[in-house]
């Protein structure tokens, strides 16, 4: 399991351990899990080979995320790192690879309504994360064969207890009174509760056998319960015990403002994530939901935790936290 310090990798490892698999974690820091750990960078091919030696399969979740950083950083970690993992897997004779991708590799900037996992779009110069992940996904699925089955999984907007990305930022902004809803919050957005994302990675591991339909393909993973984004955000804030009322910003304004903020931020505070980006404005202001059937048919996977159950878990976590 590469990228072991992320919530998704940790929860997936826990699920694998719980059913009796043995797991080795690879990440730069500490994975906070009771399993053997290799510490280091996926850019180090020798280290990757060391970590994978003796494994049957690898889940490659390590990645540089966010919008802060140079293209070279994103490229070397996300593209070269993926190449290292696949090369080691092939060399060591592993039986399968699950590559953790993102729906933003096919990000089209318009509404996605019951969409399928479109082919990755490359050639963008304004979105280092999406561009590097798209190049890496192409590389990964292109390397798939019956000798080394590879499946790409694109979890869409993962959230849950302990999540510092989506939930953490929403709550932080709402508490600071800086949360704005784009376009009235009517856009239907599907999301993925953390346990479902983890079970999907496990399902992909199990499904990636020679001859399977999923080999060399990418699947979007989500709860299959699109909701108006306003309802989702209100649900998460309610679970966190935050009562702030989000402001409403028209979509066009948000898109323009996002572009401007991104540019100013990049100069003023290059090491911090800006509060609004064009990408975020699009994500929040237009519909994003997917056809659940390919993952169900090819991976045999269905989500087991509903949004309402997830929100209850989240509330319990905040209450205990």
């Amino acid at each position, binding site marked *: 399991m590469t990228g072991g310090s992320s919530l998704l990798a940790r929860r997936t490892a826990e699920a694998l351990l719980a059913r009796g698999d043995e797991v080795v974690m690879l990440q730069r820091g500490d994975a906070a899990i009771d399993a053997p750990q290799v510490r280091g960078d996926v850019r180090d091919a020798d280290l990757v080979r060391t970590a994978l030696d003796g494994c049957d399969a690898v889940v490659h979740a390590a990645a540089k995320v966010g919008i802060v950083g140079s293209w070279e950083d994103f490229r070397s970690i996300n593209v070269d790192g993926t190449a290292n993992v696949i090369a080691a897997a092939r060399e060591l004779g592993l039986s399968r690879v699950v590559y953790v991708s993102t729906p933003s590799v096919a990000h089209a900037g318009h*509404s996605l*309504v*019951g969409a399928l996992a479109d082919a990755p779009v490359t050639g963008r110069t304004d979105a280092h994360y999406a561009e590097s992940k798209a190049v890496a996904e192409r590389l990964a699925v292109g390397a798939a064969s019956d000798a080394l089955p590879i499946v790409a999984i694109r979890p869409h907007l993962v959230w849950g207890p302990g999540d510092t990305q989506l939930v953490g930022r929403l709550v932080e902004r709402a508490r600071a009174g800086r949360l704005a809803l*784009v*376009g*009235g*919050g*009517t*856009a*239907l957005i599907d999301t993925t509760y953390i346990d479902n994302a983890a079970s999907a990675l496990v399902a992909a591991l199990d499904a990636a056998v020679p001859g399977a339909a999923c080999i060399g393909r990418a699947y979007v993973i989500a709860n*299959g*319960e*699109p*909701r*108006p984004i*306003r*309802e989702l955000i*209100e649900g998460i804030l309610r679970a966190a015990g935050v009562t702030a009322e989000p402001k409403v910003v*028209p*979509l066009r304004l948000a898109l323009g403002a996002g572009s401007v903020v991104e540019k100013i931020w990049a100069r003023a505070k290059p090491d911090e994530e800006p509060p609004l980006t064009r990408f975020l404005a699009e994500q929040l*202001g*237009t*519909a994003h*939901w997917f*056809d*659940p*059937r390919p993952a*169900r048919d090819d991976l045999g996977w269905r989500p087991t935790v*509903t949004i309402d159950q997830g929100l209850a878990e989240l509330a319990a976590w905040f209450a205990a936290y």
Partner: protein
Amino acid sequence: MSAPALPTAGDWQDWGVDPSWSRTLDVASHDGGTHRWHVLERRPAATERPLGTIVCVHGNPTWSYLWHRVIRRLGDRYQVVAVDQLGMGFSDRLGPRTYAQRVRDLDDVIGALGLEGPLVMVGHDWGGAVVQGWSVAHQDRLAGLVLCNTGIAVPAGRRAPSLIRLAAAGPMTDLACRRTRLFVDGTMWLSWQRIPAEMRPAFRAPYRRAADRAAVRDFVADVPFDDRHPSSAALADVAAQLPTITAPALLVWGASDPVFDDSFALDLAARLPHADLHRFDRIGHLAPVEADVAGVLDAWLAERVPPAGRATSAAASAAASAAAAADSPADRPGYVPTWAALDERADDPAVAFVDGATGVSTSFHELHQRVMGIARGLSELGLRPGERVAMLVPPSVDLVAAVYAVWRAGGVTVVADRGLGLGGLGRAVRGARVDWVIGAPEALAAARALRWAPGAYRVSTGSKPVMGAVATLDDLVRSAAVLPPAPMPDDPAAVLYTSGATGPAKGVRYRHHQLAAQRDALAATYGITRDDRLVAAFAPFALYGPALGIASTIPDVDVTKPGTLTAAALATACESVDATIVFASPAALANVVRTSTGVDQRFSRVRLALSAGAPVPVATLRATAALMPAAELHTPYGMTECLPVADVPLATIDAVGHGRGVCVGRPVPGAEVFVAPLGFDAATAVVAVPPGTTGEVLVRTPWLSDGYDRRWAIERDARPLDAAGRRWHRSGDVGHVDADGLLWIEGRSVHVVHTDRGPVTPVPVEVAVERIDGIVRSAAVGVGPVGCQVLVVVVETGADADGLAPASIAASVRDAVRDAVSQPVAAVLQVGTLPVDIRHNTKIDRTLVATWAERVLSGERAKRPW
């Protein structure tokens, strides 16, 4: 002279044509020369045997490109060849050729292509005339004849198409056709708005240079406008031989073609009486690219033309003969004409009809006199059996008398619902091609101004013939002519247009025996005897009165706004005939309840109150029952094509409580209901689903209408056969039959939400949602692609704000839907008001709601379009 240079592979692809379809061949001509032809040809893979061979011939000034949609659709199973006529498209440019030469040219190229087996010949415009010429001469090789916006002779009473007349007028011909692109572009322009932009350059491509357009001019010049023209005799000869064709024939028509309009279609239909006719409303001259001609052709070939080298398949012919046996009894036992009761009461001074607006009553004696008088008068004026008569008369004794008179005289009444609006009414009257119009002066003025029925004879109501009318109804009554022979039970009687909740209005054809059976079904279902008297707040229902032999009246209400019927107006109407039966739409009843001031003695004799046409709220039925203490409340279920199908008394509705949908009761005596799988294939024998399973509701009764007027493909899709070869009617509704044999309706099949977990029907969702306090009306719709749609509920709460519903309402809706149908709801939207149909004010246009919901839920700021 050589043909224009062939398009490049890139051009072909831009135009939606596979470059491999295009080829040229040198053809030895009957004229002794050799000419190079260009054709588009496609056939199945070499390993597969084609189902048949189709030859398509374009007209002037198009080319084989006209058929590219047909080639795309059928070329994987059939060998399809579309030729460029000589001088046209990318074939050789030659001197002028006559009609007879063109027919022989076609035979030359068919021979050179080596097409030997039986051929399906398809022609458009003057290519249609060429195809007809070939077909009459080669009937042994003709598998089928398909004609599209074409002709063989100028129909009687019609002048040649004015556009062509203008173009063919001496020196104009050369200017319009060759020296300028006027004719080429003009033809395109006739259909311009409906032709996708990428097709337009393709149509122009072979006619860019004046030299390339010579044949366009010559072709126009070859259209004979008088008998002295060299091609006149040849065309007349083919026209005369056309009735000898026995191969299956299809007339597929763009109904808005100003050149080859409906009159040409009907002229051909008269020459080919066995032909199937399919008209496309609002489609023009270039129908093969404007409309799905390819799809209709595909379905028609499958049904009518057996695959090459095989006789009609045994199963199909068995089914067809069984269907014939089931649907065409040799005689009609028990048939009593609709006017028989009028004959019986010819001397009866009792009231037959009361005009609600004026209070004037007409006795049975007077009504009989009037009906038979008008029938004699129409016959004397020249009404022939089977001629169509548009009834543009407001509900009144004039309407009642005129309808029965037309039936008695053997005419076919064309009745259009005012709810269609002026545009829909016009399309209906025009589409029906009526021979006569009977109307009030205002209606005749509209018909004349809007050219609904040019050339039709007009008869007006009132005291003087106006608006070009040849007579008034009163004039006809005074006719001294003898009564014409009565029509036979299987003769056509009526074409009814109603405001379809979905799609364009379709004319529904009825024969006399079907109308008579419908009357008998109503009498049997509701125990109607001569002791009953009827108040019909839905005007067409009042027409049943004379057939049932009972007095009837229409209350004083604006027919276009049934929801304005007041309790006082209904009570006055009941008093005027001492009513025992009341029929009113749900909207009308709701207003009666609203405007009522308590129990009214004038309702005391009402034994039966009927409400139908749309789902009737139970609260309205209960309130009506309170107003009419002696009345049993019933809701018939049915449709324009078949009424009644089922019936449910209020007592049953109360007893069954809430269920999956709206309970419409049990089939009435003589009616059968059959629930077919959702999305079943109408082309194969349909099998019923197990009881309790949701499916599409099919019905079958002796009073089922004949079919749809001039819409072959729609009629075929709407009337599937079961394994026993019995023909059923698709109601368009979805529902199920419960363990007690009660039919529950769950919505329209086009409104079913197709989620990734399976289909969800809207009505059970709405029924559950509307039980929530504060929700007036709701619509359950699907958003997203079919197969992974999500369920969205749009509610009307009285609040005048469109958008996401407040959190508390959303939560109650989600809970209610989960409890009732175990379905997740993606979003709950609220609107100030939901769109409803004009006629009933209750049927929600869910398709429109879904379109709006999808935009809102994509994040757009969408104003609702209603």
